[in-house]
């Protein structure tokens, strides 16, 4: 702005009645000051705009590193755009979805599938992809792997995307390879980033992760120590024992308890041996007053001494539970399961569980074994404790948490057990169990879920009573099931005692299920690399 323009603005602000504008040399000098001012301002405005000169360029950013990975097939590129657009439109959370598939829920699956092909994300979609990864931490690893080096280049420029530099870190591969970068992130990163780093490193080089943690252990806050300790769960090995033994004397009770729990998951550890000794002394095989024939006799501990406390036994039971049963449960939970085979004359887990237990101790003992089986990841014990799926009228679980026990079993066995469970018990208790089954669901499991949904419809209930299972089915059913499901999408006659209108809602829910399954099949097929063109002859 030159001086005369400033004068014009000054006159305009105060009004030409108060302050005459500077002589402008405009076309109407004699007319009236206001017109004269407007004339001069018009000339000034147009000549300033028409005479704009380029600015001096600042320093240009260094170009992004090249990305040599193959580009997404065209259809897959468009699909990714749609999935990301649905996310930013607030897809997932807003109300009833009718028959339209929930695209945002398919994004994780798409990203995981695309990751297996090693494609590069189209640059134009990187901002949306980074925003998605920023909003959902569960997407980050896959999203950043797809996004590649140009996303890191962008993240350098936009503070909102800084997480990509730290979390996905300069690589998704770097970890074990770049000690300096790891050290820097460990020393300077945010808590969540440090946990992620430790977890990732633990997966690649367990002892390096332990060394990293030990290097700063004493300086960490108690809550942080607890979370860090928890990330040692993966790749736990006898090499961790000395550190964990040391952590048994930690200032924080929660840290001590977690260290004890981890040690008890190492059957060869000194703590496991101590706990086995204690547990053994409480349990014997014999004949008691209330046991027909031979059975298990329990003599729960009478006190929780300092040594027990040091080994992670919590001395104070929650309200409503007896002290001795509480201590007893913790001892059995932490004792290696192999203890019992030796204790009970070489019996296998099935035989041990079949043994009668004296004086109503059975629920406590079996529940403790369930926890031990999960903690020690022992499939034989988990299988024995689960037993066959319970009969229709009996309670859902004889003992313990079936979903946790199931997660110890091999995938195929797990799916089969849940399928049989659903066939007898329906879906109302199955959500947790379905959640631990491998995706896509095995054939028999998928069929059991669909049959159960069909039965629920015939029973006249509303589909949203099953919305959790429906949502899981949309994401986890094998897309090949879609054709078999099509017959269910027609509206049916409602049973007389059914809920009004339920039939059409069910038809809608099944349409969405089928639509989602088809969409999943299509979107996975779109990722197939195009067949290489025949070489020109």
């Amino acid at each position: 702005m030159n001086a005369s323009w400033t004068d014009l603005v000054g006159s305009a602000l105060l009004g030409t009645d108060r302050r005459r504008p500077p002589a402008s040399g405009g076309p109407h000098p004699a007319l009236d000051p206001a017109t004269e001012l407007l004339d001069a301002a018009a000339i000034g405005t147009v000549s300033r705009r028409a005479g704009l000169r380029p600015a001096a360029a600042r320093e240009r950013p260094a170009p992004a590193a090249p990305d040599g990975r193959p580009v997404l097939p065209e259809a897959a590129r468009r699909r990714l755009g749609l999935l990301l657009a649905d996310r930013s439109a607030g897809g997932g959370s807003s109300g009833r979805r009718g028959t339209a598939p929930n695209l945002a829920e398919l994004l994780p699956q798409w990203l995981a599938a695309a990751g297996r092909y090693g494609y590069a994300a189209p640059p134009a979609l990187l901002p949306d992809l980074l925003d998605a990864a920023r909003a959902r931490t569960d997407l980050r690893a896959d999203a950043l792997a797809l996004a590649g080096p140009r996303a890191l280049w962008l993240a350098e420029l936009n503070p909102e995307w800084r997480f990509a530099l730290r979390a996905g870190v300069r690589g998704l591969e770097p970890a074990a390879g770049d000690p300096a970068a790891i050290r820097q992130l460990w020393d300077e990163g945010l808590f969540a980033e440090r946990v992620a780093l430790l977890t990732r490193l633990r997966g690649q080089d367990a002892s390096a992760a332990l060394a990293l943690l030990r290097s700063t252990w004493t300086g960490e806050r108690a809550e942080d120590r607890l979370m860090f300790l928890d990330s040692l769960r993966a790749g736990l090995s006898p090499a961790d024992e000395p550190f964990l033994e040391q952590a048994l004397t930690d200032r924080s009770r929660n840290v001590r308890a977690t260290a004890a729990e981890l040690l008890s998951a190492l059957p060869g550890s000194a703590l496991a041996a101590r706990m086995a000794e204690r547990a053994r002394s409480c349990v014997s095989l014999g004949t008691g007053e209330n046991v027909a024939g031979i059975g298990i006799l329990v003599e729960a501990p009478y006190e929780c001494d300092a040594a027990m406390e040091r080994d992670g036994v919590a001395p104070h039971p929650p309200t409503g539970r007896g002290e001795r049963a509480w201590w007893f449960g913790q001892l059995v939970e932490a004792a290696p399961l192999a203890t019992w085979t030796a204790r009970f004359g070489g019996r296998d887990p099935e035989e041990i569980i079949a043994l009668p237990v004296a004086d109503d101790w059975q629920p406590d003992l079996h529940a403790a074994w369930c926890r031990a089986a999960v903690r020690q990841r022992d499939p034989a014990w988990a299988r024995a404790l689960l037993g066959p799926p319970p009969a229709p009228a009996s309670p859902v679980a004889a003992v313990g948490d079936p979903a946790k026990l199931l997660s110890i079993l091999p995938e195929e066995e797990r799916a089969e057990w849940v399928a049989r469970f659903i066939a007898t018990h329906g879906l109302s208790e199955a959500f947790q169990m379905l959640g631990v089954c491998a995706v896509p669901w095995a054939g028999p499991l998928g069929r059991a879920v669909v049959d159960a949904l069909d039965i629920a419809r015939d029973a006249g209930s509303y589909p949203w009573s099953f919305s959790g299972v429906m949502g899981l089915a949309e994401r986890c059913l094998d897309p090949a099931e879609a054709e078999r499901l099509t017959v269910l999408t027609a509206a049916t006659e409602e049973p007389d005692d059914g809920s009004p209108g339920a039939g059409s809602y069910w038809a809608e829910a099944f349409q969405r299920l089928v639509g989602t399954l088809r969409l999943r099949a299509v979107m996975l097929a779109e990722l197939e690399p195009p067949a290489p063109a025949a070489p020109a002859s």
Partner: protein
Amino acid sequence: MPASWSGTGTAEAAVWGLCAGSGSKPYRTVVDTKGPGYQCACPSRKFPCKHALGLLLLWSEAAGGAVGPAVAPDWVTEWLDSRQERTRAAAAGPAKPADPEAARRRAERRAQRVTAGVTELEQRLTDLLRGGLAGADREGYQKWDEIAARMVDAQAPGLATRVRELGAVAAGGGDWPSRLLEESALLHLLTRGYLGEQRLPGPLAATVRTRVGFTTDAAELLAGPTVRDRWLVLSQLDTSDDRLTTRRIWLHGARSGRVAMLLSFGAAGRAPELALPLGLSLDAELAFHPSARPLRAVLGESHGPAAPGPVPAGVPVGPALAAYGAALADDPWLDAWPVVLSGVVPIPGSDAGGWQLADADGQDALPIAGRGPWRLAAVSGGHPVTLFAELGHTGVRPLTAWGPDATPVPL
């Protein structure tokens, strides 16, 4: 081929087929891919109906031979002929008004009203400057909305829009006195121009009339001279308010080097009918609205099918800015002028200033207006791109970028 379809075929730009619906007779469906235009015997009110869309899907898989070449049956050729008839009739000129005398009187009455409105506005502007702008930033929109309503009554909608914008400028913060004076002065320039219209050269007078709010009938324009070229679709941009969806389509002529803008409208929440995919190149006639700096145009007849087009040729920053300056000399009320820039890189904003668009080699740069252009940055990755943008006095507004893979990306 799904069982519901029979008698499908394609010849030149037409695709047709019979689709078995719920009725006893199959629906006759035909699509003119050149228009595009659709005709179907079904009662659907959706347009195009699902049968036409299904037919196009079958046709698009034509590599597999789903719809093969055939001789068009009579019902197809009849429809195509009637379509051509209509196009020709439209091109031949508008139907003459029933009563030329009445039309002349209507035009005269409108001219009187507009003149009265323009005179009133000029008075308001000088009153405003006489009393001073101070305090205008706290007065709110009401005063401006009232003046705008007067301009609507005076049948000068172009002035009404500009007056409403004055309200926004005043309330916009920053250096509002300077901007308010600029916009008031340009509005003053327009009112003076309209009142002295007879003394202006023809094209400039046409520009002034358009800016005030007079429109020209599309059919009338198409009856006049047209420009045939291979037009590349540079951008298609929808904006909407609560009443209207406005679509702007920018075209670039390969031979003439001219840029044209097509405007189309849809009811709120609905897409305007005219749709030209980004990157398409079509051999077509355009008729430009008369102006000292013609830009807005209407689409006339197309010759042959459209095909994906090339990356447009562009210029560096300096010449682009010069083009804006030259356009402004013809039409001082231009907010921005469309330009294609080539070999440019976006430079991220920093403490030293906002985003810039710079020549890849050279020192010239322009400020980038608006929010952070992250998609442009992502496409560029620090490498030069070709960019279609609107260039105005506040900087460039990026609309479409072509990266190294030559695919147009809407920004």
